[in-house]
């Protein structure tokens, strides 16, 4: 969000699996646990639905950080989805790091439906980290700049 004062606010896209992390985010809400409004959640059925293209797309369109949340390994609603997501995202993030994109802009976190507090805390720390990094310049699509 663009605040009136000129302090930088990051754009954060969070992909949350429907069964655990989205519910975890809801629980954070129910418990009125604060985290910055910079985080916007996209609901996906499972963390394994997150295509690397989505992550890159987000960065291209001006996101400053992308976080993927899923069920804890072993707890996937679909038994194995998060295991695949874990491999994919590990490799993708490692590749982004390799290309010199700040590694702290990406994160995977396992948040169960019961972990509202963890969700809020994760988002707080992620937003803080990304805010420190500042604007994503290395992986943004210049054409999409305003």
């Amino acid at each position: 969000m663009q605040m009136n004062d000129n302090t930088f606010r990051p754009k954060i896209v969070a992909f949350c699996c429907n069964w655990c992390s989205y519910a975890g985010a809801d629980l954070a809400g129910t418990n009125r646990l604060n985290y910055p409004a910079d985080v916007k959640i996209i609901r996906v059925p499972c963390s394994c639905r997150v295509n690397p293209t989505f992550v890159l797309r987000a960065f291209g369109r001006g996101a400053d950080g992308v976080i993927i949340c899923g069920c804890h390994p072993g707890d996937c609603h679909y038994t194995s989805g998060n295991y695949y997501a874990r491999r994919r995202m590990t490799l993708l993030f490692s590749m982004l790091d390799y290309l010199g994109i700040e590694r702290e802009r990406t994160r995977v976190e396992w948040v169960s439906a019961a972990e509202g507090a963890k969700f809020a805390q994760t988002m707080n720390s992620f937003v803080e980290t990304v805010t420190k990094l500042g604007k994503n310049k290395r992986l943004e699509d210049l054409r999409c700049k305003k």
Partner: protein
Amino acid sequence: MQRIGVFVCHCGSNIAATVDVKAVAEAAKHESGVVFSADYQYMCSESGQDLIKDMIKEHKLTGIVVCSCSPRMHENTFCKAAAAGGLNPYMVEIANIREQCSWIHKDMPSATAKAIVLVRSAIAKVTLNAPLTAGTSPVTKRALVIGGGIAGIQTALDIADAGFEVDIVEKEPTIGGKMAQIDKTFPTLDCAACILTPKMVEAAQNDKIRIFSYSEVSAVKGFVGNFTVTIKRKARYVKEDLCTGCGLCTEKCPQKKVPNEFNLGLDNRRAIYIPFAQAIPKIATIDPDYCTMLKSGKCGVCSKVCSAGAIDYQAKDEFIDVNYGAIVAATGFNPIKVDKYDEFAYAQSPDVVTSLEYERLMNAAGPTGGTLLRPSDRTHPHTIVFVQCVGSRESEDSTKCGKSYCSKICCMYTAKHAMLTREKYPDTDVYVFYIDVRTPGKSFDEFYRRAVEQYGVHYIKGMVGKVTPEGGKLKVQASDLIAGKQLHIDADMVVLAAAIEPDKTARPLATLLTASMDTNDFFTEAHPKLRPVESPTAGVFLSGACQGPKDIPETVAQAGAAASKVIGLLAKDHLVCNPCVANANEMLCSGCSQCEKVCPYGAITYSYKEFRMPDRTTKLRLVASVNAAVCQGCGACTVTCPSGAMDLKGFSNKQIMAEVDAICK
């Protein structure tokens, strides 16, 4: 062009106190495709739902966005309202501006700004939604149980009790499984046969149950509710309908040197045999590997003595196709082979036996008629050493063929063996070497303590290092970790508590069923906590030790649970399918089969199809197709597919990208 309606809920003050709902509704108006946008006190109320219905009609809406609480709360409510208003329920998207906005942000401007972004993202998504219809598929009201041990029998009985037809396929000539070989059961010490055989008879007599003994599953097609299974009925060379089970042939057969597998090779049987007295079905079977008639055409004694004329040397394997609505895997376990454990001298001395062999040696129907005798010289053993965890709980880098898991039942049956031995032969010294004694379970620990305290069994924490056969004795070298010393015991017998592993037939069966397995070849459950008796493949259920090591009560409990799941499925005439499933675009699919590999449900199949190419030629191409009745919609396949041929309805690539774009705008 979509005509989208946006409804912004106040949720009393829950949303309206921190989010300027009017501003949100106003902002939504300017989004492309939005023809109606309003805020309302309580969208989930009767009148709120009416508003949805009315506006759908009034503005000919093709999609709606409700900005309210979490979709996990009221998505269903709004979908139903939309459907009542004549809109496809899948043309509804929820912007979660309560749990994920108003409740967590205190500052109104920033919460409002975020709500606007969330609404924009929901609008972007709904613009790309397509109406979906949930399909249905009929259910064949018959179940198949693979494996006729206690797990399979119990499952079949429970299903049959509920009034459904059920078939048991058992690869051996008789049902009964491992339990039939066991002497007594812990912790009650009642006789296994006494509690098992009535169940076997009950299964045989139940007119809802068909037993295909000496049969195997050779092919499985179809999906939940609609499986077609090819059952291979192996040639038994005895006509099942004629054989009376009199057993004359098994006495007259001249081929006497066939290791008796029921007694684990501790004695011999004939080439024509009935595994044990209470076998079900009680029908003789000719072992084609040993029958001289089948091998060389010379003999025919059994045929001569059979007054029923049941012998048929010309018999061939038969294949029958049967339709099922549900399949239960109950393939059970086997003890591992312990030949490789040279230190225990299993291969060197007949007096080193496995626990299951020991079980037979104790059994009244066993090779020794229930008298405990050493296999080597048929004398009574006075010192017996039990070794625990042989092949269980081995470290991963072990070169042996052991298992990393705990086999769970060994501690208890060893306590049983020790106790029974001491009870029958109080002059026998019994030593049990263990790493840990694990006896959780009702009356289990008491049972173990009885063995130690009442029966004076010597439990020693430590492992046996070496067993050396020497002068008719077995020199056991072991360490006592608590006393911190080496022990040397001259034993008469050594009993190895061999680890148990899934039956070898489980792995090929899992492939047929497209059910997944863990690295130890145990079937994986759909959810380890919440769906422990279902496999991830819809319509396939798990019963007994094929899912993991289990004792009898646990097996029976799981068998009942699996049965109830099957009954729940068969009780339905039709299955309603989730329409948010994966869908393969055949024009884009290149047949690489990556998606098939990640599908946890086996919902993806590959087949050659003919395609008309742009240059008007036809081409045969391998393409994927998704069985909508089986797919659960996780989306694993969509990311695996490099060409984007695989997409998920309701969460399509384009929809998610549109959401991303809207958020990052």
